[in-house]
């Protein structure tokens, strides 16, 4: 079978599942068993999509790695980029590992809770107490379970211990490093990058916004009213700006934007059908 046909078939059947699941009434979905498998199928599709995460990494390392190895222009900055990348990866894995340790402890407490709920013999009760004594958060409570009934109704003891483990504040250099990269690099630099736009929009307002036509005048008037309607200073001058702004947003703006949204929505639907039926050729590498 032609490779292109195989690709088209897979594309079609992947989309068909969700279209069928949407179109069929709930009762029929239940009858044919789609409801029972829906979560697993969705996780399957999610996993397929998520597996693409490595593509970016491979490209990043290839491009910047080669710059460093061959000492090309900008090699130092490539080194900085890869250092940032690997340090974040290292600390994020470290943070994950630390969290896993506490969650494993919480899970073993949860397991004992389940065991306690179904304990039926005194032998097993003793076994439960023995296991509880191995866990620091439960050690002191083990002897409070005198009878089988005590054990069966002891959920709260285990839940409290589990909460204690999960809420435990652990400090380590790994956590410090992870916090530093998040709060000292990722958040502030990201915010600063975007905030540059504030300067540019001010410069553009002075240089580029010329009110030369009726369209530009209408745009300017609407912009001024919207800004004045939610600025404390202008509202101190005249409170009437606020209802005008709200009316402008609720009536003419909503109507005009709904027109845009409906148009874009219909276009999106057409595009979805074109993708589903593989009419869009670009993705499949078909030569012109």
């Amino acid at each position: 079978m032609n490779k292109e046909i195989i690709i088209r078939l897979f594309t079609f059947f992947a989309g068909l599942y969700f279209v069928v699941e949407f179109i069929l009434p709930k009762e029929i979905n239940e009858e044919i068993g789609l409801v029972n498998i829906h979560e697993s199928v969705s996780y399957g599709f999610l996993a397929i999509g998520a597996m693409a995460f490595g593509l970016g990494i491979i490209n990043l390392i290839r491009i910047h790695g080669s710059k460093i190895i061959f000492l090309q222009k900008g090699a130092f900055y490539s080194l900085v980029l890869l250092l940032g990348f690997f340090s974040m990866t290292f600390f994020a894995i470290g943070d994950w590992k630390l969290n896993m340790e506490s969650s494993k402890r919480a899970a073993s407490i949860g397991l004992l809770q389940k065991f306690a709920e179904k304990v039926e013999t005194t032998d097993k009760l003793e076994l439960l107490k023995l296991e509880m004594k191995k866990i620091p958060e439960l050690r002191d409570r083990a002897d409070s379970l005198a009878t089988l009934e005590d054990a069966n109704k002891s959920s709260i003891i285990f839940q409290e211990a589990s909460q204690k483990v999960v809420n435990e504040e652990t400090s380590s250099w790994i956590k410090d490093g992870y916090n530093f990269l998040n709060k000292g690099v990722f958040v502030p630099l990201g915010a600063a990058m975007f905030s540059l736009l504030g300067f540019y929009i001010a410069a553009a307002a002075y240089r580029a916004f010329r009110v030369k036509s009726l369209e530009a005048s209408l745009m300017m008037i609407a912009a001024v009213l919207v800004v004045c309607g939610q600025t404390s200073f202008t509202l101190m001058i005249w409170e009437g700006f606020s209802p005008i702004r709200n009316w402008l947003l609720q009536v003419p703006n909503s109507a005009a934007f709904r027109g845009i949204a409906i148009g874009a929505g219909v276009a999106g639907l057409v595009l979805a059908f074109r993708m589903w039926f593989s009419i869009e050729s670009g993705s499949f590498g078909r030569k012109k």
Partner: protein
Amino acid sequence: METATVVFAGIGTLAIFSFLIKENPFYRFFEHLFIGVAAGLLPILTIRNLLYPNVIGPLIGADIQVFPDGEIANPYNYWNLLFIIPLIFGLFYYAVFIPKVSWLSRLVIGISLGYSAGLSIKGFFAEMIPQVLGSFKPLVVPGSIGDSVNNSIFVITLLLVMYYFFCTFKGESTAHNGARYTGRLLLMVCFGAFFGSTVMARMALLVERIQFLVGEWWTAIF
């Protein structure tokens, strides 16, 4: 450590702002650092929050627990073996690096496009039907002139804007051209609201950064 974080964040912010003077090594250093750190976050989060707990973990039976008496608390579910299939399909993405089988990467991209398309068909109806229904407003509201006027303006604006978008052909008729021109003017009112809002959004980002520099950073340094 807290202070060091704040100080470094402030230096980084100033470095980014230095781009306003001109591009310089100080800016480029922090720009590349940011890109590297941001790129490092996604893969780990994808594995930590989705692939390991929901796919790989169940597949390898990582969560199987045994009670103190030896009984298995949650036996292995053999249906989980089926997770091998999406993982294999996911590996096809990497076929792009092997010329002989690179078509397999297009296969898995096709699957992703297919399910996105299937989902968006459903999404269109869920989003747009209430939008369309919400546009049928009564032009005359008994006892409320204000609502009648507002509804009329709403419906006329909507129709004229849609006319402007959909009827893009050239015509000689005054009604056609007039309707399109009015639709265009009404769109400008909408874009004006957008412009006003955009100014606010961009300035808000700047306000936050300057507040950080003037407040937390200044206090941390002095």
